[in-house]
């Protein structure tokens, strides 16, 4: 009888430790990421625009920190932050995050930066920049967008057509 009870106990303890181990793994998987230098998402999002730009310009900063900085600059960024964001338009990992911020900033410097980026990026990143120009309804970009209407890259040509329609719906 003692042997049976012992085996049952071992079975229960074994299963319990497996459940606890699984629970621990799940808890670890749910722990939010924290940047070693800049801290949690909430801490980064609390920084002033100039400090957010420092993150963007820090070559050692993680993608996590830079992406959080961009999200925050969408709400608090201004003309002064545009150059740091514009550089990221060419970065395959951060181009969208840069557009996320730039699209929201109500300053002409953004339109100029997006137009300039048209000659620097290609493929999906170019389609993204064109989409942002369309969202901002930048009339001055129309002559530049026309050049992409016949791009061999379907994503680029479709984005150009859509952006031109959005900027001048009556004409396109």
């Amino acid at each position, binding site marked *: 009888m003692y042997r049976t009870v012992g085996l049952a106990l071992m079975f229960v303890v074994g299963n319990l430790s497996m459940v606890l181990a699984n629970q621990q793994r*799940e808890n*670890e*998987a*749910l*722990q*939010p*990421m924290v940047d070693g230098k800049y801290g*949690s*998402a*909430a801490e980064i*999002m609390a920084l002033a625009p100039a400090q957010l730009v420092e993150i963007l310009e820090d070559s050692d900063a993680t993608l*996590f920190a830079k*992406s*959080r900085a961009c*999200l925050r600059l*969408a*709400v*608090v960024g201004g003309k002064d932050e545009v150059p740091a964001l514009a550089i990221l338009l060419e970065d395959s*990992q951060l*181009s*969208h*995050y840069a*557009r*996320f911020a*730039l*699209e*929201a*900033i*109500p300053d002409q410097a953004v339109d100029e930066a997006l137009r300039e980026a048209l000659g620097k990026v290609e493929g*999906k*990143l170019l*389609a*993204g920049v064109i*989409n*942002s120009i*369309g*969202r901002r309804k930048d009339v001055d970009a129309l002559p530049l967008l026309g050049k992409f209407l016949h791009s061999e890259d379907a*994503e680029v040509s479709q*984005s150009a057509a*859509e952006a031109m329609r959005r900027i001048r719906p009556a004409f396109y």
Partner: protein
Amino acid sequence: MGREAGHGDCAMYADQFELLSRGDIDAVLIATGDRWHTLLSIQAAKAGMDVFCEKPCSMTIAESRALADTFQRLGRIYQAGTQRRNGSNFELAANLARNGRLGQLQTLHAQVGPGDRWPPITTFDWLPAEPEPPNDVCDWDRWLGPCPWRPFNSQYIRGRWRGYFDFHGGGILEWGSHTVDLCQWAAGLDETAPVEYEPRGMGSDTPYSIHCRYANGLQLVMRDSDFLDLGSCHIRFEGSEGWVETADGGRIETSENLRNESPDVPREVARAATANHVRDFLDCVKSRKTPRSNYLAACQAHVACHAAYIAFQLGRSLTFDPARDTFEGDEMANRMRSRAMREPWKI
């Protein structure tokens, strides 16, 4: 699914756009995560299809408007998955508000996600990176769709994507897309949204509320607690002559003077809301009439929830112009009305 539907030729697609490019489909049900809802609804409409889309129907004010504009322009049928509009108890309550039995309507109450389970707003956190599975298990890039890129973590695809800014609208949108929608419907305000939003209870998950006012003076209170415990998704309408409150359980509570006009709806009848809602959609696909949760109603209810969310996130009162979808005198709030989509996605 094929077996369930009684035939064995149910095709599966890894690419949603391959399905949408078929020329032989009249209507689609969109039941992806919230992040894909607007984009796929618009693409389906452009492909000539009618759409039944789960709620929340949009991630931003701009998406809500683009959705409504597209369906209006193309003349397709759109039914949001806000099935309570076809739930008997909610309909009874709405009728009491509409037919004057409550007197002059004064305050509408919409239950938003209880903060202990559905925090009002989302976080900007990332979960730790895990190795991406093969594409035939989960195409992570496609799963993210128009959202900002973040590293893969299996918790997201197990349903724990809610609560993150990129994917979700917090407790305000999660339940408000149902209950604010019901309030606007009952008050005959499907074509507008409140003009003032005052958030209360910031800094903790519960209790919280957003006190809103329509241009006609009617009050709307989005709050997460202190209802009569009638189930989930409470609504309460208060007028000069009485009040009514109900929720998913089917029970209807009223002021004393209305007790004889509001019989409880048996739970099984209340539960028929979803089947009724699907029937409503299918009937409208055939008749081309407007379903109850049509594109404009869904758009405006979502605009109200997004505006409330923005007020709560900023932690200050906002004034909103529903005719122009613009916050008055608040540039930060206006910036939060839209989000750039990840390339190559666009609407």
